[in-house]
């Protein structure tokens, strides 16, 4: 039962960490919005999906890569990858702002019930995914390989691959940037202030609408970055990939303590590892079941997730 885990432990762990970092970034999309609005941004999964398409469009249509082209090298590689990342973040960020505008703003101004907002968000996520489905004829889209997946070295029998390394380090860097932003920047402080006490924040001269739009934007940027890494590692997308990713990332956010940025970090990594280990030990068909059982157990003992709720607890 455990022979796979033992035999391939380090390969699995590296894969789990890479996947985990992608979860971390998508979780941030959920957690940021939850922190300020106390609402699940149900459309975040589709924001992610749009980000993945942004990544592919950049390499395929702007830089003209195809499935058969050779991977990029040198400065060109950096340029293409960076453009892809920016495009993915821009697409996702703008989509997130659009979502806020269409699905949330009016309802928030009215101060109506949370469920209406939830359904509105579900509606917009149906719109986003259906739109993409119609645009792509329900077909999967493969990504040209831009970053060659060179095996850098072998550690304890595990291949250390370039794309995995890039993903882990770049995603971690983006996470820490974001955490710093929320902790130290003026806008970040405003976001935290709103998440702790909306009225008091207003009384300090914080423009609530701007803060909320920024929060969606920042969450969208993180989610978009995740879209880029996802494409770099898996090189594939389809209009419906958001659903699985969204569910996993949301689970990760809740595991860590939704609304808590650091919680998204640990929750994402934890979930990434849990998924690969559980798949290796029990079989992939029981992966989701294991994840949800662990989630229930965690919540039973820590009803606000591993790291407690809300952005407010990210103290200096």
């Amino acid at each position: 039962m455990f022979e796979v885990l033992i035999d391939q432990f380090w390969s699995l762990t590296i894969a789990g960490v890479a996947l985990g970092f992608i979860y971390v970034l998508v979780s941030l999309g959920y957690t940021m919005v939850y922190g300020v609005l106390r609402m699940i941004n149900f459309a975040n999964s589709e924001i992610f999906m749009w980000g993945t398409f942004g990544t592919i469009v950049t390499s395929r249509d702007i830089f003209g890569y195809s499935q058969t082209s050779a991977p990029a090298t040198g400065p060109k590689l950096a340029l293409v990858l960076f453009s892809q990342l920016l495009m993915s973040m821009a697409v996702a960020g703008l989509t997130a702002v659009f979502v806020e505008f269409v699905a949330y703003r009016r309802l928030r101004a009215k101060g109506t019930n949370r469920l209406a907002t939830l359904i509105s968000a579900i509606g917009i996520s149906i719109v986003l995914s259906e739109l993409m489905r119609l645009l792509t004829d329900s077909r999967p889209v493969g990504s040209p390989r831009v970053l060659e997946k060179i095996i850098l070295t072998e550690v304890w029998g595990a291949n250390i691959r370039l794309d995995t390394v890039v993903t882990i380090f770049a995603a971690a860097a983006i996470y820490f940037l974001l955490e710093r932003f929320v902790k130290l920047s003026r806008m970040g402080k405003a976001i935290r202030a709103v998440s702790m006490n909306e009225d008091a924040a207003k009384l300090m001269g914080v423009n609530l609408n701007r803060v909320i739009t920024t929060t969606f934007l920042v969450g969208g940027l993180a989610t978009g970055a995740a879209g880029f890494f996802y494409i770099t590692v898996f090189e594939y997308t389809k209009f419906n990939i958001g659903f699985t990713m969204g569910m996993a990332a949301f689970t990760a956010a809740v595991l860590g303590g939704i609304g808590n940025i650091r919680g998204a970090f640990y929750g994402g990594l934890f979930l990434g590892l849990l998924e690969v280990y559980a798949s290796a030990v029990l079989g992939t068909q029981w992966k989701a079941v294991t994840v949800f059982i662990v989630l229930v157990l965690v919540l039973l003992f820590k009803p606000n997730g591993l790291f407690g709720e809300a952005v407010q607890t990210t103290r200096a």
Partner: protein
Amino acid sequence: MKIRNYWNLRDFGANIWEKATRTQRVAIALTSILLVGLLPFMGGSILATPIASFDAVLVYPVGMFVLMSLGLNIVVGKSGMLDLGYVAFFAIGAYTMAILGTTTKMNTWEIMPIGIALAMIAGVLLGIPTLRLRGDYLAIVTLGFGEIVRLVVLNSSWSKGPNGIANIPMPPKIGPLKFELENQKVFFWVVMAMILVTIWMIRRLTVRRPGRAWEAIRQDEDAAELMGVPTLKYKIWSFTLGAAVGGAAGVLYASKNLYIAPEMFTLNVSILILACVVFGGIGNIWGVVIGATILGYLPDRIRFISDARLLVFGIVLVVVMNFRPDGLLPRKKREKKIIERDDNLLKLENVTMKFGGVTALNGVNLEVKRGEILALIGPNGAGKTTVFNVITGVYKQTSGTVTFDGTSLGNQKRYEVTALGVARTFQNIRLWGDMTALENVITATDVHKKSGLVGALFGFPRASIEEEVNRERAHEILRFIGIDQYSDRLAKNLPYGVQRRLEIARALGTSPKLVLLDEPAAGFNPAEKVELAATIRKVRDAGYTVLLIEHDMSLIMGISDRVVVLDFGTKIADDIPSVVQKDPRVIEAYLGVPADAS
């Protein structure tokens, strides 16, 4: 910013309904049922659904969506728990039917109770550990549960895995009604019957204790708990009832579709049903029915848009939620009701009370407005205390109606009346003497609580937190009444004046809307009376409505907004104090001598 209700369908409907007599109501109900029952014959009309046959669409998705939405509405709408795994109960019902139907000789109606029971058991098993979670945490856990059920079915051999189960038997005929493949009207009628039963069940529960408990939990779970609602128990109940409806729907669905597979029970179904509930008007039965009907029917009706219809569906959701966030037919709002009901918290209409040959009350009409102090006076034996006893459910009136906050009184148990928001003090002090003042009030705060068995059994940490919060609240009440300094003394050892005030504090402990004070100033000296008057006014100012029996005229004239005078079971005056005081009949019957004599 005012939110106007432009298409006020609910009020329109409610208006007709409320004005109707009993016979008219029965007629309206029967006609509606009949008309809806005739729907399967409307396949050729504008209602027809292209491609899919109309009668089939009426059964699924429309009928099933309505049924499931009503079930989910108990969970989401009534008690405010966000459940994203409702499909699990539907799946459990369906698989029970499929497995038992294909392996045993049992028919649909025999399997139905088993399916319902299994769904309910699943509801309890899921509910006990998870329903302590709030809001979005509960949402993700229920979502997980839904997925677990689907994945277990998908990956197990007893359920035939992804292949699903085919050849599920149709239900045997009921009398002359035969279930047919090509014409599904009988299925539709059965779904309708199940919907009606569910509506009946919800309505019954809603006007009774569980409904109030759910309402309290939905609005403020902590407060509900503080008022003595065993929230976990009621949440599990709500969950389990929802599960039962889902299970029943599943059994019928399997028996109708003849084939089921795990892919039919995805999260999308849960989300869709939730959308039906919120879209129609969460918490409002008719709203939910309409929402589910539209969302079930719409995609089939607009099949001509073909591939883009889901897109249209999404847009419809966003637009409707943005412009009618409470759904098409919103739930009744409390404040609305207050305005509609003319501010009367309590209304006695033509109440007669006979004991053997003695008529204690004779056609008494009495209205108590919200937020007022109403004094009820009259000579001994005039029927004042009888009025209290009728209101609090000690007696049931011989005839006439008593309406409290929109609920008709008369059949409730006494504690149920208390739960509705009526508290009283006693003329002869009836404190729990061997409890401290504080304990007296705490006990009142959890007077609503029935068992707490589950909590006690599993030793939830909340129980002790709850205890702490209750204590805090009791202190607050004592402070409010001004006797906090006596909180740790046994009630029986308190000075008389303090005991009287403690009676009031204890009454407030039950979080009443209406406080009945039975001669609160009995035995007080003038100084104490002044103090009491201030206290009673304070109680009123804090938002309670006060109905008081008192003999002390200076007290009554000083604090009452209105005075009602009874004599021999008949109301002889009802006006502001200064007018009543000068009413010759009152003077003759009661005061005897001009006021200010006491």
